[in-house]
C-alpha cells in the first residue's frame, strides 16, 4: 500500500493526516494509530468540492495549515480522487478496471501550480465527472445503488421480516452493515430500478377537490403540476390566464376567482355541480369564457378522422348518395341529456391520454409501415377460417449431442450399477414361474387369506389414514410469542450460516467491500462459528419457555431440529478445518 500523496487535514473538527494510497484513502487522527476513515478506491464514487474559498470537501475534510499549500494539496487530492471516480464509473460500465497508477505518477504532490492536471491521461473524463459531482447537492454516493443508504432503508421498510433480522443482528453489532447486504444486492438493485421508473400521465380527469377547513373556508393547494394539468385539460383556462395575468389580475387572485367562478364549476367532473348556479356568484371576467354545455346531437369537438379503412363507412359514401342511409344521429353516449357533456369530456380526456401514450414512441404514427403490406391490410383479411384444416406440424425434438446421451445410457446399462443382487439362476427362475402359472385356475378357486394377516394390514392402513386426518384437523396451537421466538432464532441462525458459508468458499465474482485476503476470511469465519455455537443454547431456552407455557416440548424441539442440524454441520466442518491447518485451502479433499 504505497502512499501516493498526503496532506494534513481536519475531519470532524479534529486534526490528522489524510493519505491517499494506491488502494485506499484514509485519514488518521493525530496521535492515533488506526485510521478512523478508511475508504477503498472502489467505494469512492462522487466528489463534492465547493469553491476554492470555502475549502469543504467530502467527507468534510478541511485542509489546514499553511493555507497556500493547503489549496494545492486539495487540488492534488481532488485530481486523484476524480480519476478514481471516473475509473470506478468505467468499471461499472465496461467492467475493466484500470489502475490509476499512471496518472498518479504524473502528478507530483510537490508542485505548486494547478496546471499539473494537464498531463493526466484521461482528458475528457475528469471534467465531466467533476461537473456532475458539483451539481449533485449531497455527498451521498447516488451512483452506487449498493451502498446507498436510502435504498437500503426502502428495502427494509418494504420487507418487514428483513427489517426484523436487520434490527436483531446489525443493531446489536453481530454483523456489520456491509456484511448484511453482501448477498442481498439483488434486492437493492431491484429497488433502484423500480425507483427510476417514470410514471406516466394520470388517468383521472383533473378535478381538484376543495378541502373544507375549519371556519367554513375551502382550501385548494395549487401546485405547478396542478396548474400544468389544468391548462392541458381545459385550454379555456389557459386562454383566460394568458389574457388576464399579469395585466388585470395577479396570479393568486386569478386562481382565487377561478375556483369561485361558474367556469370552474362547469369543469367539475360530476353532474351535480352544474346545478349549483344559485350558489356561485357571477364573475365578470370568467363568465366570458363560459361555453354552452356540450349536449347537442353531435359532440362539439368532432372525432378524429383516423378510421381504419376496413370499417370506415364513409369510404363508399359517394356510391350511396341517393339510396343510402342517413347518418345515425341517435348514437349518443348515455341516455340522459344532462349526462352528455360529462361523458363527452371523459371521452376527450381518454383520447388525449391515449394519444400522448402512443406518441411518446417518437413517431406520431400508430402503425409501422412495412414494405409491401402497408397498414397490414392483407394480414387483416387473411382469416383462419379460409384455410384448409391441417393438423399442426409438430416441433421436431432436436437433441444436442445425441451421441453422448445414448452412449451414456449404453454404458450404464452394460455395467450393473445397482446394488449387487443376489445371484439368481435365471433359467431356473423362469421355469418356476411357468410352472406356477400352469395351475392358475385351481389356485384361484382355492384363494383364501388368513384373517390375522388381513386384520394387521387393515389396522396399519387405517392408522396411516387416521394420522393424516389428525394432522389436518389439528391447528397450529403454538402461541404467538413462542412462535415468534422460534422464528427469530431461526432467521438469525440462517443469517450466520449464510455469512459463514459465503466466507468459507472461494468467491465467485468480484465482491465489492467484502473480506478479500485469506486471513480476513478466516477471521470472519471464526467469528461466525462463535455465534453459531451459541445457537443450541438459544434453542434450549425456547424449548424451556415453551414448556413453562404449557406446550409439549417435543413439538418445539422437532420444529427447531432442522436449524440445529444445519448449525451442527457447519460447526463440524469448522472443527475439522481447524484441526487440519495444512488443509485450510479449499482444494483439499476430506476422507
Amino acid at each position, binding site marked *: 500500500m504505497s502512499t501516493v500523496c498526503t496532506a494534513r487535514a481536519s475531519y470532524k473538527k479534529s486534526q490528522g493526516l489524510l493519505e491517499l494510497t494506491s488502494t485506499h484513502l484514509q485519514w488518521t487522527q493525530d496521535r492515533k494509530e488506526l485510521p478512523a476513515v478508511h475508504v477503498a478506491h472502489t467505494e469512492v464514487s462522487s466528489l463534492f468540492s465547493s469553491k476554492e474559498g470555502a475549502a469543504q470537501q467530502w467527507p468534510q475534510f478541511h485542509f489546514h495549515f499553511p493555507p497556500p499549500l493547503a489549496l494545492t494539496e486539495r487540488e492534488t487530492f481532488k485530481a486523484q480522487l476524480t480519476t478514481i471516480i471516473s475509473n470506478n464509473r468505467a468499471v461499472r460500465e465496461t467492467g475493466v478496471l484500470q489502475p490509476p497508477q499512471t496518472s498518479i505518477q504524473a502528478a507530483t504532490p510537490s508542485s505548486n501550480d494547478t496546471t499539473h492536471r494537464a498531463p493526466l491521461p484521461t482528458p475528457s473524463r475528469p471534467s465531466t465527472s467533476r461537473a456532475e459531482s458539483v451539481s449533485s447537492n449531497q455527498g451521498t454516493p447516488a451512483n452506487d445503488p449498493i451502498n446507498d443508504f436510502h435504498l437500503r432503508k426502502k428495502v427494509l421498510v418494504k420487507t418487514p421480516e428483513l427489517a426484523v433480522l436487520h434490527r436483531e443482528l446489525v443493531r446489536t453489532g453481530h454483523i456489520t452493515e456491509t456484511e448484511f447486504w453482501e448477498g442481498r444486492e439483488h434486492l437493492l438493485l431491484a429497488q433502484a430500478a423500480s425507483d427510476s421508473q417514470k410514471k406516466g400521465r394520470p388517468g383521472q380527469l383533473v378535478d381538484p377537490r376543495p378541502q373544507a377547513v375549519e371556519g367554513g373556508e375551502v382550501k385548494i393547494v395549487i401546485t405547478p403540476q396542478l396548474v400544468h394539468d389544468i391548462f392541458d385539460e381545459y385550454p379555456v383556462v389557459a386562454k383566460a390566464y394568458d389574457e388576464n395575468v399579469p395585466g388585470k389580475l395577479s396570479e393568486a387572485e386569478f386562481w382565487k376567482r377561478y375556483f369561485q367562478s361558474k367556469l370552474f364549476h362547469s369543469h367539475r367532473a360530476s353532474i351535480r355541480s352544474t346545478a349549483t348556479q344559485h350558489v356561485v356568484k357571477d364573475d365578470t371576467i370568467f363568465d366570458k369564457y363560459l361555453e354552452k354545455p356540450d349536449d347537442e346531437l353531435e359532440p362539439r369537438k368532432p372525432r378524429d378522422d383516423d378510421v381504419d379503412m376496413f370499417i370506415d363507412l364513409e369510404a363508399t359514401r359517394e356510391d350511396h348518395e341517393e339510396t343510402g342511409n342517413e347518418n345515425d344521429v341517435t348514437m349518443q353516449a348515455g341516455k340522459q341529456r344532462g349526462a352528455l357533456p360529462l361523458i363527452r369530456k371523459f371521452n376527450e380526456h381518454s383520447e388525449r391520454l391515449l394519444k400522448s401514450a402512443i406518441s411518446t414512441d417518437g413517431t406520431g404514427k400508430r402503425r409501422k409501415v412495412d414494405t409491401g403490406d402497408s397498414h397490414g391490410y392483407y394480414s387483416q383479411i387473411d382469416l383462419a377460417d379460409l384455410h384448409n384444416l391441417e393438423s399442426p406440424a409438430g416441433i421436431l425434438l432436436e437433441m444436442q449431442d445425441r451421441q453422448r446421451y445414448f452412449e*451414456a445410457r449404453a454404458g450404464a446399462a452394460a455395467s450393473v450399477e445397482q446394488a449387487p443382487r443376489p445371484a439368481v439362476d435365471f433359467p431356473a427362475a423362469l421355469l*418356476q414361474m411357468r410352472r406356477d402359472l400352469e395351475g392358475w385356475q385351481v389356485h384361484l378357486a382355492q384363494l383364501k387369506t388368513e384373517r390375522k394377516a388381513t386384520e394387521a394390514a387393515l389396522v396399519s392402513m*387405517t392408522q396411516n389414514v387416521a*394420522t393424516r386426518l389428525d394432522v389436518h384437523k389439528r391447528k397450529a396451537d403454538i402461541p404467538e410469542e413462542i412462535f415468534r421466538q422460534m422464528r427469530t432464532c431461526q432467521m438469525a441462525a440462517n443469517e450466520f450460516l449464510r455469512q459463514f458459508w459465503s466466507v468459507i468458499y472461494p468467491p465467485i465474482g468480484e465482491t465489492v467491500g467484502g473480506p478479500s485476503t485469506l486471513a480476513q476470511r478466516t477471521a470472519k469465519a471464526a467469528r461466525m462459528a462463535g455465534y453459531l455455537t451459541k445457537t443450541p443454547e438459544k434453542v434450549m431456552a425456547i424449548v424451556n419457555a415453551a414448556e413453562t407455557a404449557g406446550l409439549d416440548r417435543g413439538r418445539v424441539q422437532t420444529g427447531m431440529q432442522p436449524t440445529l442440524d444445519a448449525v451442527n454441520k457447519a460447526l463440524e466442518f469448522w472443527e475439522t478445518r481447524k484441526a487440519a491447518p495444512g488443509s485450510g485451502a479449499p482444494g483439499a479433499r476430506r476422507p
Partner: protein
Amino acid sequence: MNPSSHLSLIIDLSPSQWHLSAQSNNSYPLSFQTFLSHVLTFVNSHLAFKHENTLAVFGALPGRSMMLYSSLDATSANSNDPPADANSYRPFKLVNSVVANNIQKELDAIERLTEEPPVALVGALTKALCCKYQPFGPSTTRKRGNEATTSVDPRILILSVSPDLSASYIPVMNSIFSAQKLKVTIDVCKVFGEETVFLQQAAHLTGGSYIYLGRRDAFLQYLTMSFLPPPSMRHIIAVPQQDKVDFRAACFCHKNIVDIGFVCSVCLSIFCSPVPVCSTCRTKFPMKTLQHLNASRPSIPPANGVSNGAPRPPSARPNPGMSASLR
C-alpha cells in the same frame, strides 16, 4: 353420476425377482401363483364395481413390454375363449383366462434367454399412457347429444417387484409429466424389493398413493383398500399414502442416483460433477466458476452460484429421513 373409471394395470414379471420373493427366508413369502390369484380377484372386483369400468393389463418382462388384456377389444367372440362354464361369471372368466394365457405365451417367448435383461417397466408405463387416448380417438366423439355423458377417470396401477433402474430416470420423469397433463393418477404397490425412488416420485407427483407391502400374505387386503377406489372418490374414501417421498434424481451424464448435484440454470439438467458445457442445451459455463466449484466440492455442498448459465447446486433436497407428518 359417478364417472366410469379406467384402470391400467402394469405387472412386473421379472422371473428372478419373483423367485426371490417366493423364497421362504423372507418375512412373508409371496409366490407368483398366489400373487396372480390375488391380482385376478382384484381385477374382477374392479370390473364388478361398475358396469362401465374398463380395464387394460400390461406386462413388463425382461427386455420387452406388451399389452396382455384390454377390455376394449375383448368384445368379439374368439375361438381361443374358454368354454362356457355354469359355475363362473363369464366376463370374469374371460379376463382371467386371457391374462393368464398371454402371460404364459410371453414367458414361453423368452425361454431361450440365458441372462436377464432389465425389466421394461418404463415401456409398459408409456404404453399404458398411450392407451389412455383410445377412448378419445379422433373417430369417436366423447360426448354425443342423447347419450349419457360418461367421462372417464383414468388411473394406472404399477405392481413392482424389481429395484430402480437408474437409466430409466429421464423416461420415467417424462412419463410422469405426461401423466400430469393427462390427469392420470399413478398408484404404486411395492410388492417386494427395496424402495424405488422414481416410483415414489411418480405416485407423489400425480396424486396417487404409494404402498410398500408390510404383510405380503394380505396382499388382496391392500389392493382392495388402497387401490380399488377410483380417484374421483378418494376425497370421500381416504386411501393410505406414504408421506416420506425420496426426491433424489439421477444425473444425466452417468445415470447414477445422486443426493447432491449441479444443475444447469438454463435447462435444469442435473450433473454429478461440474461440466464445462451442458450436454443438453450446449450452454457454456465460465471456467472460473467451474474451478471454484470444483475446488470447493469435497464432501460438502457448495453454497454459491452465479446466474447466466453457470451450474449451481440445487436447493436442499430432502433426504429419506425427513418425513412430512407429525407423529
